[in-house]
């Protein structure tokens, strides 16, 4: 074994789609690929993994469409017999008796579980610093955060210790870490992917999606994820099939640039805005039209989100009471036990959000906060509908800044929350959105976000693919630093 990186023989440099092809042609063995990734994941120095498989599970059949290319999975997906703690101490020792539908579907499609990835506790955070198991480091610069909450999944894919990964997105938790780590992250239309077995944060917003090295890999993974599930009563499925992007054409595509999310005075970092504007120019040169559009209520999306998501969380997290699973701390009687268990088991940000949600739902405040936020949500969805009458896609920078330094924003919740400024509106509207790598600013990755109407995933993937081909960004760049 040689210690230097030999790009011609390092099979972990293949994209997932290329690995699938190589296995199909008999040039690569699935077992060898799994072992290469298992070794990379076990040797991970970024704290991206909370658990790594000892050995490849029984092959799901070399004929399965994903051919045995292994998958890293965010900790909050329940996986039978495997630690699934959602990054929280309150679920200490929890090994679920069942597997999340999407994880089971992907295993059956030939993507076996490689490991469970670190995350912000219960997916609450934008930096991965809220994990009970320590922060994840950004492979581009280990003094910086990878973004969150799917920070472990993003860092693992960027650093090359996973070919692809599953994440969840409630207000940006796939797209923002994808942007900060220089990879692709896609949040599907709400309802296309089953939520069964996903440890819940805010049920009306949570949606699983792929984090990958390129757009083709995102399409390949998403294709096997979508589908109606009887066990998720808000599940819809996807009309038709997800197709792999091929054309790479932007001719005649109308891109709307919302002033409210990318204009002057919004607070987007200069370098991020420059990279965004350069890509808009590139899109025009490829035949797209680029015009300013308006989402008048988008500036209020963050406020509505930070009412609705904590309100749903305060209800969802009521189940952690020391009775059925996880940690229990005895303290006198029943209420004493509940209270002590929760106070010792939850981290600071989770407590803050439970408090915020409980307050906004409490008697006397419900109409002023929760009721109003639900009406703002209606207006935001209407804004998008209006925009999509004129434009094929609305595009924005994914995050307002590049990856920031560890600890830089932990003392001020509001400064952390504004990281979601450009991603929350799409979550509230339930529409699909993708972040693709958009070049560097000061040596760190930036993201370009496209969103379209509900179920426009195939068109969105085509447009993202066209931009990806034109920008020519190599997601494997993070490895130089990792």
């Amino acid at each position: 074994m040689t210690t230097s990186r030999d790009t011609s023989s390092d099979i972990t440099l293949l994209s997932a789609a290329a690995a699938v092809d190589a296995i199909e042609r008999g040039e690569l063995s699935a077992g060898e690929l799994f072992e290469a990734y298992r070794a990379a994941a076990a040797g991970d120095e970024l704290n991206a993994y909370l658990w790594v498989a000892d050995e490849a599970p029984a092959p799901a059949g070399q004929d399965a469409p994903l051919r045995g290319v292994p998958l890293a999975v965010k900790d909050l997906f329940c996986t039978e017999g495997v630690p699934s703690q959602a990054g929280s101490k309150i679920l200490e020792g929890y090994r679920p008796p069942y597997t999340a539908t999407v994880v089971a579907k992907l295993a059956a499609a030939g993507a076996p579980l490689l490991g469970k990835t670190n995350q912000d506790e219960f997916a609450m955070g934008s930096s991965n610093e809220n994990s009970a198991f320590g922060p994840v480091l950004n492979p581009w610069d280990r003094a910086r955060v990878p973004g969150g909450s799917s920070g472990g999944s993003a860092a693992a894919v960027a650093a090359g210790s996973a070919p692809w990964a599953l994440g969840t997105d409630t207000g940006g938790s796939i797209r923002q870490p994808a942007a900060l780590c220089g990879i692709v992250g896609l949040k599907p239309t709400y309802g296309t992917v089953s939520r069964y077995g996903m440890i819940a944060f805010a049920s009306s917003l949570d949606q699983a999606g792929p984090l990958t090295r390129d757009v083709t890999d995102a399409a390949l993974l998403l294709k096997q994820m979508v589908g109606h599930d009887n066990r998720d009563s808000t599940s819809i499925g996807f009309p038709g099939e997800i197709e792999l992007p091929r054309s790479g054409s932007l001719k005649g595509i109308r891109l709307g640039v919302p002033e409210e999310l990318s204009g002057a005075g919004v607070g987007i970092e200069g370098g991020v805005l420059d990279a965004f504007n350069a890509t808009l120019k590139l899109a025009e040169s490829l035949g797209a039209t680029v015009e300013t559009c308006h989402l008048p209520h988008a500036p209020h999306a963050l406020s509505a989100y930070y009412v609705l998501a904590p309100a749903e969380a305060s209800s969802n997290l009521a189940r952690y009471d020391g009775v059925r699973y996880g940690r229990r701390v005895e303290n006198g009687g029943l209420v004493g036990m509940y209270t002590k268990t929760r106070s010792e088991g939850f981290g600071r940000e989770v407590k803050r959000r439970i408090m915020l949600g409980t307050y906004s739902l409490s008697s006397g405040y419900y109409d002023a906060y929760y009721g109003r936020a639900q009406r703002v949500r209606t207006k935001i969805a209407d804004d998008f509908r209006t925009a999509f009458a004129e434009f094929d896609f609305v595009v924005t920078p994914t995050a307002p800044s590049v990856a920031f330094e560890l600890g830089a924003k932990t003392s001020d919740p509001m400064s952390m929350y504004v990281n979601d400024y450009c991603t929350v509106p799409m979550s509230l509207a339930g529409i699909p959105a993708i972040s693709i790598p958009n070049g560097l600013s000061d040596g760190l990755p930036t993201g370009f976000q496209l969103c379209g109407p509900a179920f426009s995933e195939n068109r969105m993937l085509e447009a993202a693919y066209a931009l990806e081909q034109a920008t020519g960004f190599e997601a494997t760049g993070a490895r130089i630093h990792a």
Partner: protein
Amino acid sequence: MIDREQVLHVARLARLELTEDEVARMSAELSDVLGHIEKIGELDLDGVPPTTHVVEVSNALRPDEIEPSLPCEVALANAPAVAGGGFLVPSPQADADPS
């Protein structure tokens, strides 16, 4: 502005016990966040229907047929304490303040 008394009230509703330091910090942080959130109070939302869910799915029903479910011992395997095929909890009567 959320004062100390409101923080304690909400913490009690949420079954959280906060230290004095946490109460002070929570009061300041929640006040700051709510200060931003209150901007939605300026919007004219008269006659706008609320959105509880973006997806129009109502009464998702399936045939009422018996399907296999988790065996009792598997469902109880993660519980901190069990007895007689159920979850065992401390007695509510042992609470100093049972509210």
